């Protein structure tokens, strides 16, 4: 399979062309069988280092699963208290040292730009698994993979719902969808609207962007509902939070008149924004989406350290 993918690191979706995204998604599709358990030794003898300076469940464990399912090994930074970090070692030194032990590094860190810093000092490829409020490109790639597998990337009509101001996943996803000419509706309370510079960036790429506060207004007219969590701490007034949170809570009744092929996605963890009753409707795809993190991360690892596609 020819590949357009020539990257050394995976840091930000802004660095991906549509062709590069397509090559990752195509490879992920061919690796899905291994993600489901078929034995592979594609990455035998290779070691992936996980440097998580912040808690993570899905991202950390799906990277670990991806590496192990392809026959590779994983080393973990472990709790920061027990490591050199607590002795005041810089991130630059940490990645230089651990880069000497492994074939690639996955990093999650609370500071924005930390993954790019790591890429400047690491002797091996760096994958950004979330840098503060910055980027989380592997989440965006698995979102795109989910849309491609469970809906369609061409002529897509999608609603991004919830906290569009602070949510890094929706910023990256909106940017990537603009490469596919998607029709995007932004649904959020007024105080959590998508920042103006991101919206104008989308419009400048010719993407159709609409904004509304009313989820009811859009639910019947889209192919994908991408839900996100509205965090309580964003609202100084608890009464206001309750009001907003309840108006963005997805229930089966909400979906009664939706298109048959509508899919509901969520980066998880969910709290109240999708009721458990939605799980058994034909629309729910969020657990499938979470699983797709494995083949997508397999594809990236294979491209970066397994000799390409």
């Amino acid at each position: 399979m020819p590949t357009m993918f020539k990257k050394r690191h995976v840091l930000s979706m802004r660095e991906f062309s549509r062709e590069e995204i397509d090559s990752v998604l195509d490879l992920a599709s061919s690796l899905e069988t291994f993600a489901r358990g078929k034995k592979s030794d594609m990455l035998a003898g290779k070691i992936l280092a996980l440097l998580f300076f912040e808690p993570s469940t899905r991202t950390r464990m799906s990277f670990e699963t991806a590496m192990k399912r392809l026959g590779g090994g994983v080393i973990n930074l472990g709790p920061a208290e027990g490591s050199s970090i607590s002795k005041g070692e810089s991130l630059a030194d940490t990645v230089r040292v651990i880069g000497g032990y492994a074939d690639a590094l996955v990093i999650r860190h609370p500071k924005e730009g930390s993954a790019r810093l790591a890429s400047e000092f690491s002797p091996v490829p760096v994958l950004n698994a979330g840098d503060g409020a910055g980027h989380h490109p592997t989440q965006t790639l698995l979102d795109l993979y989910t849309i491609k597998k469970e809906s369609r990337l061409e002529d897509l009509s999608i609603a991004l719902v919830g906290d569009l101001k602070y949510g890094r996943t929706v910023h990256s996803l909106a940017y990537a969808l603009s490469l596919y000419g998607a029709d995007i509706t932004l649904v959020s309370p007024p105080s959590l609207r998508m920042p103006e510079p991101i919206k104008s960036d989308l419009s400048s790429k010719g993407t159709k962007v609409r904004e509304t506060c009313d989820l009811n207004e859009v639910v019947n007219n889209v192919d994908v509902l991408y839900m996100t969590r509205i965090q309580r701490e964003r609202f100084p007034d608890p009464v206001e939070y309750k009001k907003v949170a309840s108006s963005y809570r997805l229930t089966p009744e909400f979906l009664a008149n939706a298109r048959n092929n509508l899919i509901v996605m969520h980066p998880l963890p969910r709290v109240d924004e999708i009721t458990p009753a939605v799980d058994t409707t034909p629309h729910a795809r969020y657990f499938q989406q979470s699983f797709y993190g494995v083949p997508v991360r397999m594809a990236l690892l294979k491209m970066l350290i397994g000799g390409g596609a």
Partner: protein
Amino acid sequence: MSEAVSRDEPRELRVKPIKNGTVIDHIAGGQAFNVLKILGISGTTDATLSVVMNVESGKLGKKDIVKVEDRELKEEEVNRIALIAPAATINIIRDYKVIEKRHVDLPDEIVSVVRCQNPNCISNTSEPIKSRMLVKAKNPVLLRCIYCEQPLTDRLAEYLI
């Protein structure tokens, strides 16, 4: 108030012509000290300096002028001035004559001149890296931090290192 004019009309001079060095003219009024900061010239310098501030200017209304004696500033040093004084002109003086006159032009990337305005950016920590800003637009100036990608457009002087 270029050097050439100054030599013809010495009685109107606020500061006498310099023999050798660099004259930075057409700095926006009030920005002279920020220009010195960008050039790395601090209050403890032993260079012979003249600073004229808020004099009348046809082009700018009010302008500042900085004269640095016995030092010919290099192009990459002075181009960074364009961040806060895009209309500045640089005159290199030898033996009282202007031997070179040029305008400032921002480079594509500026290093260690302004810090990122994002307090949570990795470049604002004790990591062994320099602040690096990509110049995305020159007029008005739009910078983007190479680390966190946060833009920086106004109040640039507040973020000078």
